[in-house]
């Protein structure tokens, strides 16, 4: 039983009372906080590419122009940051990871998403396939802003948002689960908001 705080009443936020806020989270409303470990990268679209690499039958690579030609999907989802804020009904547009992995032969069970400035985050392959993850380059019908991960970021809305790597440049497939940046710094290796898997051991 948690300690009850004298005279604390709180300000419960749930969307239409539907109770769709994971434990420990609050609704940030119209705000969209920015969190990152360092400066915002500035890779020109001419230099940008996206790779599927690692334990695959051959590395796949798309330039920005080629990426734009891939079949696109629109996604509306709630997002949950480990720093406690949640944001409901965010709308994105991009390419499903299923599309990027189409025709790729692999025996891998894990992916390590990698980004500009050497950011990485690890996920089970099953969590980025079957319509559960996208590489998005548009937010609310506009090009994704650099501080929110533009030109393109991973979107894995069912996990804490640090798994949705900003400035993503590729996915490395592996038989081994290799912890990424925050995962080596004490954060949970999986990060399910509904089970409140914030930190190692949660």
């Amino acid at each position, binding site marked *: 039983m948690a*300690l009850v705080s004298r005279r604390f009443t709180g*300000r419960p936020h749930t969307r239409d009372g539907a109770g769709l806020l994971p434990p*420990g989270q609050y609704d940030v409303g119209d*705000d969209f906080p920015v969190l990152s470990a360092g*400066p*915002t990268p500035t890779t020109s679209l001419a230099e940008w590419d996206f790779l599927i690499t690692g334990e695959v039958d051959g590395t796949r690579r798309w330039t920005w122009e080629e990426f734009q030609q891939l079949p696109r999907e629109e996604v509306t989802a709630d997002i949950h940051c480990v720093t406690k804020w949640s944001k409901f009904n965010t709308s994105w547009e991009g390419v499903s990871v299923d599309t990027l992995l189409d025709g790729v032969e692999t025996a891998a069970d894990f992916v390590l998403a990698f980004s500009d400035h050497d950011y990485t985050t690890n996920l089970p392959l099953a969590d980025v396939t079957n319509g559960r993850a996208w590489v998005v380059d548009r937010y609310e019908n506009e090009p994704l802003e650099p*501080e929110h991960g533009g030109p393109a970021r991973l979107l894995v809305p069912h996990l804490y948002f640090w798994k949705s790597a900003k400035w993503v440049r590729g996915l490395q497939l592996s038989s081994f689960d290799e912890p990424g940046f925050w995962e080596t710094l004490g954060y949970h290796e999986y990060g399910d908001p509904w089970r409140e898997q914030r930190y190692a051991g949660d």
Partner: protein
Amino acid sequence: MAGTALRRRLIWQIATVITNRPVSDAARRVTLDVADWPGHRPGQHVDVRLTAPDGYQAQRSYSVASAPERPQVDLVVQRVAGGEVSPYLTDELRDGDQIELRGPIGGYFVWHSTSGGPVQLIAGGSGIAPFLAMLEHHEASGSTAALRLLYSARTPSAVIDAHRLDAHARRGVATTITLTRAASPDGVRRRRRVDAQLLADVVWPVPARPQIFVCGPTTFVESVANDLVGLGHTPASIRTERFG
């Protein structure tokens, strides 16, 4: 440094308020006694959890503002008007009250005396909180690492822990406090926004290869970090932490 984070499981602990004192016009320093505190590194944070009688819970993160050399854990809490947790911590919490917290958390935005120098700290508003821990640790450990602090606040009375910062300045921390909304009556604080020119003037130059820490509101951190890269500092030398 990266890779040295503790892998210990973080459990909720009871913290007892020892004092809750104002440190600026809108911020208070809450000093907590935490039994079995495992110790922390300056720059780490804790999660605070409040529970209402009906079971509703709210959690927020706060930087630890005290040095690991001290037995207590201090949080500096800026009162956010209309906020859910900070007004409770600043206005309601009194000596002897108990709250729940767990930590320390985070192994990236940290500076320890073993990390060496030179070090540049750049704070906007309540972003000074983790640097108060680093400065106090720098003093308590007798570190010889060269420190510089650049701190932007709105008005003279919004400067958090001004007397402590002045004391650090007197012992050799090169300190620049700049005000965005008003000049100080004594003319000691300058009135200026942190822009590329000010950064070029007071931040360690690129050849000194400083470790740079930037903490504050998002717009502040974003513009300072971009300007630092523009001045030639490497992205890898710049660590950022953003408060909303």
